């Protein structure tokens, strides 16, 4: 499980972020407080992505497969972070 959690970390964070955002929009509304919460959550998720990326970089690759998994996780965090950033924009612009 841990191996999968690391490999998929960026995407898992995106998923958590997205569904919380949808929940806020659907069940709470798009008032100022909601938007503030979304902005804050987006910041937190981006920070987590950055921290995880740094941690993944520092993990010692034990063999080729281990290194491959770390690369996958790292790139996944990159895509996840971009998607999370976009996900947060509607709270500011729409």
């Amino acid at each position, binding site marked *: 499980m841990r191996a999968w959690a690391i490999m998929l970390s960026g995407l898992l964070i995106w998923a958590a972020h997205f569904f919380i955002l*949808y929940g806020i929009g659907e069940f709470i*509304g798009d008032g100022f407080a909601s938007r503030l919460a979304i902005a804050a959550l987006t910041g937190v998720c981006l920070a987590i992505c950055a921290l995880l990326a740094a941690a993944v970089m520092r993990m010692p690759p034990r063999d080729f497969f281990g290194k491959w998994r770390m690369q996958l996780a790292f790139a996944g965090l990159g895509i996840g972070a971009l998607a999370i950033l976009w996900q947060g924009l509607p709270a500011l612009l*729409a």
Partner: protein
Amino acid sequence: MSSETGFDPALYARFPTRAPRPDEEKEELAHIWCAPKGWDYLTAVNNSYIGLYYLGTAFLFFLLAGILALLMRVQLAAPLMEVLPQAVYNQVFTMHGTVMMFLFAVPAVEAAGVLLLPQMLAARDLPFPRLSAYAFWAYAVGGLCFFASIFVGLAPDGGWFMYPPLTSKAYSPGINTDFWLLGIGFIEISAIAGAIEIIVGVLRTRAPGMSLDRMPIFAWAMLVFAAMIVIAFPSVILATLLLEIERAFGWPFFDAGRGGDPLLWQHLFWFFGHPEVYIIFLPAAGMVSMIVATVARTELVGYRLIVLALLATGFISFGVWAHHMFATGLPPMTTGFFSAASMAVSIPAGIQVFAWIATLAVGKPRYSAPGLFVIGSILIFVTGGLTGVMVAMVPFDWQAHDSYFIVAHLHYVLIGGMVFPLFAAFYYWIPSISRRPLSDRLGRWVFGLMFAGMNIAFLPMHLSGLQGMPRRVSTYLPGQGLALPNLVSTVGAFLLAAGVLLFLVDLVRNFRFAPGGGTAGNVHDAGTLEWLPTELYSVRSIPVVASREPLWDDPALAARVEAGRYFLPRSATGLRETIVTSPLRAEPQYLQILPGPSPWPIAAAIFTAGFFLALTVQAYGFGLASGLFAVIAVLRWLWESDRRVAAERVDIGAGIEVPTYVTGSASHGWWAMVILLIVMGMIFVMGLFSLAFLWSNQPSYWAPPPAFRGAVPILLLDLAAAALAIGGRRLLLRGAAWPVVAFVLSTAALGGALWLDRGQWAAAGFAAEASGQGAAVFALLALQGAAVATGALMAGYCAARALRGLVTRPANTSIDLTMLFLAYAAIQGLVGALFTRAVGA
């Protein structure tokens, strides 16, 4: 090298073995995996047969739905034509969409997985062959009955998306809509069964040494595909259940006049419906990645990026469902979330496209038929992807939505993303199952006609959409400039059809089914394992995999595999078997005994069909009997499984010994049950969402739920049920009767909790027919009821096995799985009791 399971990778160095293998081993394998004769073709479960049946049936539905498309194009060739009367047209377009999406696209890629995966992973078969057989027969029988409804004018006519209230009893009183719900019922069952099969197959039956980074891309794609089915299909399962219940019993889930909400259907449908597009696209993209590498004669550039793209698509596609609902009046911020996710999901698609281009740039491409189809598919898919980005922009979508622009967009995506790759796959992989390859010369013509026809048919539709032509119209008025683009589209559609017809000619002339032996072989000079020489038992011996393209890196591999110099060169137990390996590094763990041919899967499928059909025509007595027989047939087929064999450990080659019977969380059965429970959990979660959604959107219909106080005994009973289930499994050490007793008590506790829960809601004045809230709550209780009933059935099954002495100690898979199910049911009951009381409290 590090290890995942404690297996020492150094042992791989023992292969290839030196000693020659006796020929009798091969004969024995051939005998164990013998080909069916006569009626046996119906009871065959081997993936070579089921996969081909599956693919053939799916392709038949492609042709049928394609004919429907041609009828529509004739009707729309000019304004105000009267080829199809309006009522017929509405059935035809509904069936075209439904059949293409549910009966062709998903089954076709699933079939390709069933057919190709075991060979690609060098497994003997998929881990649950009888489940595959059942999934196929349920789909074939149900799908054909469903399609037949159009010949008697009873085909559904509410559109493939079946929006209520148009599809509610009030506006669709006939049984047409019920036929849709029936047809989809089958495909749900068969897709879920296939997904379980594929996840366990890909993660647990890979050839030793095939770590995740050496897995063929197609296997990765199928893994993500199957995982997406597990997450997405529950939503449509729930939606179809709710709609059928509303139609049959008047529970107002979608009736705005009684506290339901038509938008709930749209959320549930599209939470499935959009991932569905990627469910269709990803396996096809996997095929393209495989074919591109072979066609370019070089290894795939950006393998890990493609893997990441597949995974990212799998995730992000669950955040785009409401882009089908931009015009429903969602607040701008909410549409913004979905707009952003719709853009994000195009990034992985872009990565794959550029990876394919990079691969072609590195290699020396051959312009064979598969190569042409792959190149054509890239062009068409990119066009569709670009219009996809356009409609992801909310203001543009307000104009384009539900117009012919979308018809153009979705056909570019699906034909470029799935149909062309599938034809590439036909030309590419048919030599591995047929004595003769298809004709490359005809294949180029097929490609030319299909490519030209596709573009001529669908490019003008962008224009007709911008000209204001809405979708799903049986005709259009003259004087809007629509006549010319529509006529061109019709001509293109017939060109496309001519291409498909030519393909059929090619198929008839050259396709000679030869499962296993005597195939045309590796005519494309490909590098992956499905091109090893195979028989019905798949490969003679299961190779150790050291790279992504083993056949390129080790030209002698095929000969050594055939000489039996790797794993499992013989049947170790005299039965059908395959090696189960670990999920990350594919280290051998144990030998799985596979079940052989059986009439029970097809019997179960026919009775399942009878059950649904009888419900549709409201023959409830017959339906009940059919349902009962279906359950009996399933239990009968399971009865032969979960048996130990005499040899507890066997040599699977080079002196490496593994057990033949494993229980607990490492076993394939445990994995399958966990996936099934995820499916059930998703259905339940979508049910909880439905309740919360109705509360949030129809607050005026909400009544205060019963007090939390009342939930205390329910919680205690559910906790007791969980404890009994888990404890019962431990008690197996003391004797086979103990767990059975514990399971029966556990089921009783679950039933008691459900009884209390239902009683409290009824006492508080709630009724399922009265309001959306009542309907949603009682639907959740009904789901729990279904879980308890299934739990009781499983407990009874364990009791029967215990009586027959089949529950072996100290651990037994049937007991394990029943424990898992009962514990899950307890958690579901507990969560449901709390959640329903919390919403609107």
